[in-house]
Structures are given as C-alpha cells and as structure tokens.
C-alpha cells in the first residue's frame, strides 16, 4: 500500500478512547501489571475483569495519571491524562466509594471539585438530582449509607458531563436495588454513545451491562473479546450412565460427538443435549440408566479463564 493510502486509512479510523500499550508496573519486586495491552473504542461498554489482586485498580490509576507506570504508555483520547486540557469534561472516574471528608456536606464536596474544574453550581445541583441525592446533599457525608456514598462518587464523576466513564468495582457493597439502579444508569449513559469502562471481580455483576470484556489475571491480559465470544464458550455437556458403555461410545462418535469416559459405565458427552443423546440411545437400542444435562455458567467460564496457574 502506498504511504498516502496508509495515512488516509489511519486518519479515517476512529481514535481509541483508551489505549493501554505494553504497560508494566512494578512495586519493588512485585509486578502488579505485566506488559498489558488493550484498547477501547468510543461508544463501547467494556467490563474490566479479573480476580482481586489481578491489577485492575493499578491499571485504572495509571490510566488516570494517579500512579506512574514503570514502562509502556496509557492514553485517554490519544494523550496522557495529565495532558488533557479539561480532564473532568473528558473523563469521569469513580475509584473508591468513600473518598470524602466525613465532615463535609455532599453538595459542598461537589462544589469544591466543580470550582476547580470551572463548572457552575447549577451543574452541581443537576448531578445531585441525577443520582437522587438532592435532599441528602445538604447533610454531612458521615450520615450517608454506602449506597449514597457510591452515588455521590458517581455524581462527582458526572460533573463535567464526560465522554468516558471509568468505574472501579462500583457494585461493591451495593444492595441488589443499588446494583440494578447502577446497571440501568450505565446503560442509559452508554445509549448516548459514550464509553464506559467498568471493573469487577464478579462477571455476573456486569454481564448484563457490558458488550466487551477485558480479562486480566496476575497483571497479564487473559482475553479481550466481545461478550458473545465468552458466552459461546458456555457449552452444555451431558452426563450419561449405561451398562453398554462401549456401544454408546461408538454410536456417539459415529454421530460426530466427543466423549470422555468417567467410569466403566459413565460417559461425559461434550456439546450435546440430553435429548440428542437419549434419542441416539433409543435408535440404537442401548439401555440408559441415567441421563443428566450439565450446564456451565458464564461465571464458570470466567473462573476457568482466570484460574490458570500463577507465574
């Protein structure tokens, strides 16, 4: 391809909202983030998943310029967070649920941030309404429940009407109602074409919200894929017990199914349904003693992906 074409193609491609390239972070001898690379496109809702201690929080703090990486680059909107002209208008972040002075009123907390970012008081009251803290905003934060603190954090992140929302374990400590409220909120936010990057150590928490996942473990990328690819791995298996194991095995193999022998009279049939195995047994006249459909949950796939032996 001629250079001009390459340049034109590159220019036409939308710039990733988040680009993490070969980021490594060492704390003394501990490698918290290990050569991590991933990118997020505008308008995507991405789950940042991994067990506790996988390096999610460190990665997010590097992305937001709070922590310095040992090597690699982490950019938002094509530059370091530090170099964004008006950071709160581009990126909103919820890092901890309880980053408040307990003796300061919720509304005053937002006012101090709004002042620093050149945002008017009208917007402060607007975001308080949005997270349903209008009345509570006039009380000191020490009187707030955990759910209220989470919502105040979210209000702070929304002050600048950002294009990208970064949330670190936002569902931690929320009651089911709070989790549902957050899910609906993030969906509505993303429906406006904005980008969401939300971390969690429990896939189920975000499975209904995200359309992509970035999974890390021990600081390294495990997989970066659309959620459907992960759901596709949720395949059924059938557990069958028969006195005619060898015959059934033959019939199943002939039908193109894979089997694993569990015992002299037990088989596990991968990627099949109990109906299919039962019908095949009836057609071939094989006696079946037990037929159980086993399902893997999305969570098991996730646990499987992240339970690889640590380095």
């Amino acid at each position, binding site marked *: 391809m001629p250079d001009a074409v390459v340049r034109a193609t590159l220019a036409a491609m939308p710039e990733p909202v988040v680009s993490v390239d070969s980021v490594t972070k060492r704390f003394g001898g501990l490698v918290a983030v290990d050569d991590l690379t991933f990118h997020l496109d505008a308008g995507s809702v991405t789950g940042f998943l991994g067990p506790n201690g996988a390096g999610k929080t460190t990665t997010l*703090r590097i992305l*937001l*310029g*709070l*922590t*310095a990486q040992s090597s690699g680059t982490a950019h938002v909107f094509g530059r370091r*967070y*530090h170099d*964004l002209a008006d*950071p*709160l208008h581009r*990126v909103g*972040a919820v*890092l*901890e649920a*309880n*980053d*408040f*002075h*307990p*003796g*300061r*009123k919720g509304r*005053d*907390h937002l*006012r*101090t*941030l709004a*002042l*620093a*970012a*050149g945002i008017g008081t009208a917007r402060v009251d607007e975001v308080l309404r949005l997270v349903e803290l209008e009345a509570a905003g006039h009380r000191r934060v020490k009187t707030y429940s955990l759910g209220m603190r989470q919502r105040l954090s979210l209000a*702070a992140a929304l002050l600048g009407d950002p294009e990208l929302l970064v949330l670190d374990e936002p569902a931690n400590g929320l009651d089911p109602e709070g989790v549902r409220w957050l899910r609906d909120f993030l969906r509505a936010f993303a429906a406006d074409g904005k980008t969401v990057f939300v971390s969690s150590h429990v896939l189920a928490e975000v499975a209904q919200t995200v359309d992509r996942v970035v999974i890390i473990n021990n600081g390294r990328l495990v997989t970066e894929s659309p959620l459907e690819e992960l759901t596709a791995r949720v395949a059924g298996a059938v557990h069958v017990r028969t006195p005619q194991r060898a015959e059934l095995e033959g019939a199943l193999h002939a039908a193109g199914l894979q089997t694993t022998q569990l015992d002299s009279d037990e088989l596990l049939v991968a990627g099949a349904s109990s109906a299919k195995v039962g019908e095949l047994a009836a057609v071939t006249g094989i006696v079946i003693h037990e037929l159980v459909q086993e399902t893997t949950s999305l969570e098991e796939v996730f646990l499987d992906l992240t339970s690889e032996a640590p380095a």
Partner: protein
Amino acid sequence: MIALIRSELLKLRTTRTALALIVGMVALIVLFTLLSGLVTDDAFLLDRNNQFQVLANGSIASAFAAVLGVLSLTTEVRHGTVRSTFLAEPRRTRVLAAKLVAITAFSLVLGAVGIGLSYAIGKICLDARGMPWLLTGSDVVLLLAGAVTSAVLWGAFALAIGAIVRNQVGAIVGLLIWTLLVESILFALVPSVGRYLPGQASNVLTEIGTPHQLPITAGVLVFLGYVALAAVAGAVVTARRDVA
C-alpha cells in the same frame, strides 16, 4: 489558577476544622494573656522583655497556622479526596500552589486576630494595673508584624512538611516533637548551632531579648530558607509519588 484557589478556600470553609482551630486559638490566647497580665507580680511586668511576652501571647497563632497547613494535604490523603483533587487538576504543583495561597490567607487572619487580641487585652491589663509602658515604637512594630509574618511562614512551612510526610498524624506529631523537644534541647545545649534550626530561627519574629538568638534579619532569612527548601521538596515529591 484563581479557580483552584477558590476551590481550596471553599475546602477550608466547608469543614469544621478551620473554625474549631480559630475558636480554640482565641480561647487559648484570651486565657494566657489574662493570666500573664493579671496574675503576675508587679516586678515581672516592670521589665520590657516581659511586657513584650505578655502582649505577644497571640503569636501562638503560628502553631494553629501550622496545624492548618499540615492538614491541608494530609487530610486529603487520609480521606482519599486527594484522588478527586488530582483528577480535577492533574498538574499537582498547581494544586499545591493554590493550597499555599489559601493557607497563607487563613494564616494571615489567624495571626492578625491572635496578636490583635493579646495586644489589646495585654495593654488593658497593664493600664488597669497602672504599669508604665516600656515598649519602644519598633518593639510594637515587631510585636504586630512579627506575629503575623510568623503565622504565614509557619502555615506555608507546615503545608510543605505535610506534602513530604503525607501521613496526618505522623506530620503533626513529627512537627511537635521536632520543635518542642529536639530543637529546644539542641538550642539549650549548643545554642550556636541550635539557633539556626527552623523553629529557633522563626522565634526572632515573636520574642525579644532571648539570649543566643540570631539577629532578626538573619533569623527571618534562615527560616525563609527552610520554608523555600521544604516547599520545593514538597512539590517535587508530590509530583513524583504515586497516589495510592
């Protein structure tokens, strides 16, 4: 920058800390000045240095300015608000500069209120007891300007120490032990060296007639040097360190 300064001033006004410090300071100064002005012997008050001391009770404002200064960043670290502060303004040196302006403004008020109070109460006590006025014009200038300058410099110095230490309790306890214990002992044992330490150097602004003290200009310059050094160190480490 103006916006950042206004944000820092709003932070100081929206918790009870600053107000509690002002109330505590006023109570302490009224008590100390009344005690030293009323309960002391006539002979004690017939001495220029002692009269200065009674009227300069308000210079304890420096300690309150120092507490306010230490708390400026360490409170944000303790409660985690430093994260949102640095997200709103990632250029951390600018945040520190805004804090310096805000702390200076509050220290100025603390210093002025403190010395105004002790000067007025002390003078009333002296007059009421019919004591002759032994202070010179330049004594009075030093008394008033020195206390305010000392409060402002201590606020700035403590802000910088807080930025270096970051741990709230550690910074306050460290400052207390250093000034009240380490410096006092060193100054008593080896005054030729001890007088160059920050606290002893700053005392030229709030005392007269203390033996072995540096001359006033030298003392102010030495303390200014410490403030500048701490401010640069505080800015450098704040810019470099990770915000956990």
